[in-house]
C-alpha cells in the first residue's frame, strides 16, 4: 500500500506534509523572501565596506571610476532591466496558461543574461590587460592614489559576486524552462517559476545599485 502511495506522491506537486496547494505555495513564497533577505544582507556587507571606504578615500574612488566605462555599464543595466521584464512576463504567461509565450519569454531572459555576461567579460578583460586588479596582482604603473588597488578589489568582489548570481540565476531559469517545456506548470501550480523569477529580479536590483556606485559616482 505504501508503495502505491509513494508512487502517487512523487507525481503530485503537493508534498505530503502540506494540507493543500495554497499552503505549499505560501510556504515557498515566504521561504524565497527570507532567502532574498539573506542575499540582501550578504551583498549589504560589501555595500557597507564600499560606503565607508568611499567616505575615507573619495579621490581614490574618483580615479578608479574613470576606468569604468559608463556606456558599458548603462548598456548592461538596460540589458538586465529588459531581462527582468521578460522574466516577469514569463511568470505572467505561466499564470495564464500561455505556455509557448512563457517559454519564449524565459529563453529571452536567459539570452539577455548571456549578453550581460559577454559585456562584463569585455570590461573585465580590459582591466586585466591594464593590470587594474586587486593588490596582489595590480601592475598598472600610472596610478595616482596609493590605495587605488582597493577600488578594483571592491569592483571585482562586487561584480564578481553579482556575476556568480547571474550565472546561478540563468541556470535556475533554464531549469524551470525545461520543466515548463515538459508541461509541469499551469495556472494552478507555478511555484518554481515564481520563486526563480523573484531571485532573478533581486539580481537585477543589486545591479541597479552597483551601476551608479561603480560607474557614475566619481
Amino acid at each position: 500500500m505504501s508503495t502505491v502511495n509513494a508512487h502517487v506522491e512523487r507525481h503530485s506537486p503537493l508534498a505530503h506534509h502540506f494540507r493543500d496547494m495554497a499552503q505549499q505555495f505560501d510556504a515557498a513564497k515566504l521561504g524565497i523572501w527570507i532567502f532574498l533577505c539573506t542575499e540582501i544582507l550578504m551583498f549589504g556587507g560589501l555595500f557597507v565596506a564600499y560606503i565607508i571606504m568611499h567616505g575615507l578615500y573619495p579621490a581614490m574612488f574618483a580615479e578608479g571610476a574613470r576606468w569604468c566605462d559608463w556606456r558599458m555599464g548603462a548598456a548592461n543595466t538596460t540589458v538586465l532591466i529588459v531581462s527582468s521584464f521578460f522574466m516577469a512576463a514569463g511568470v505572467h504567461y505561466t499564470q495564464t496558461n500561455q505556455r509557448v509565450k512563457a517559454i519564449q519569454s524565459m529563453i529571452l531572459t536567459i539570452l539577455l543574461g548571456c549578453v550581460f555576461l559577454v559585456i562584463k567579460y569585455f570590461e573585465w578583460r580590459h582591466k586585466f590587460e591594464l593590470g587594474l586588479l586587486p593588490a596582489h596582482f595590480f601592475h598598472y604603473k600610472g596610478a595616482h592614489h596609493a590605495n587605488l588597488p582597493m577600488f578594483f578589489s571592491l569592483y571585482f568582489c562586487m561584480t564578481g559576486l553579482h556575476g556568480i548570481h547571474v550565472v546561478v540565476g540563468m541556470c535556475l531559469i533554464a531549469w524551470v524552462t525545461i520543466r515548463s517545456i515538459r508541461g509541469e506548470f499551469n495556472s494552478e501550480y507555478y511555484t518554481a517559476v515564481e520563486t526563480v523569477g523573484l531571485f532573478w529580479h533581486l539580481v537585477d536590483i543589486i545591479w541597479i545599485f552597483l551601476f551608479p556606485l561603480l560607474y557614475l559616482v566619481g
Partner: protein
Amino acid sequence: MAQNKVAAEAHGHGDGHAGHHIVPMSTYVKVLFALLALTALTVAVARPVSGFDAGIFNTLIAFLIAAVKASLVLGIFMGLKYDKKLNLAIFFTGVFFLLVMLLFCLLDIYTRVHVQSTL
C-alpha cells in the same frame, strides 16, 4: 494583449485562489519604460557623463534614483505590492538591519579622535 488582460482578471477575481494576483502585461510594460527612463536620467545627471555637478548631492541623487528603480522592481515585478504583508515585512527587516550595521560602523569611523602616539 487585451485578451490576456481579460483572462488575467477573470482568474484573479475568480475563486480568490490563495492570493495569486496576476498583474496585467500592460503594467509590466509601463514599469519597463519607467525603469529605462530612470536609467537614462541617472546617466544624464552623472558628473563623468554630462559634467552636471551637484557637489556631495551627486551621490545622493544617484542613490535616490536607484532606490526608486528598485522599489518599482520590488513592487510590481516581484509583486510585493499585491503580496502578503509578511513578505514585505521580511524584506524591510533585512534592509533595516543592514542600515543598523551601516550606521553603527559610520558612527565609529566618524567619531574617532586621531591621537598622535606619545611614545
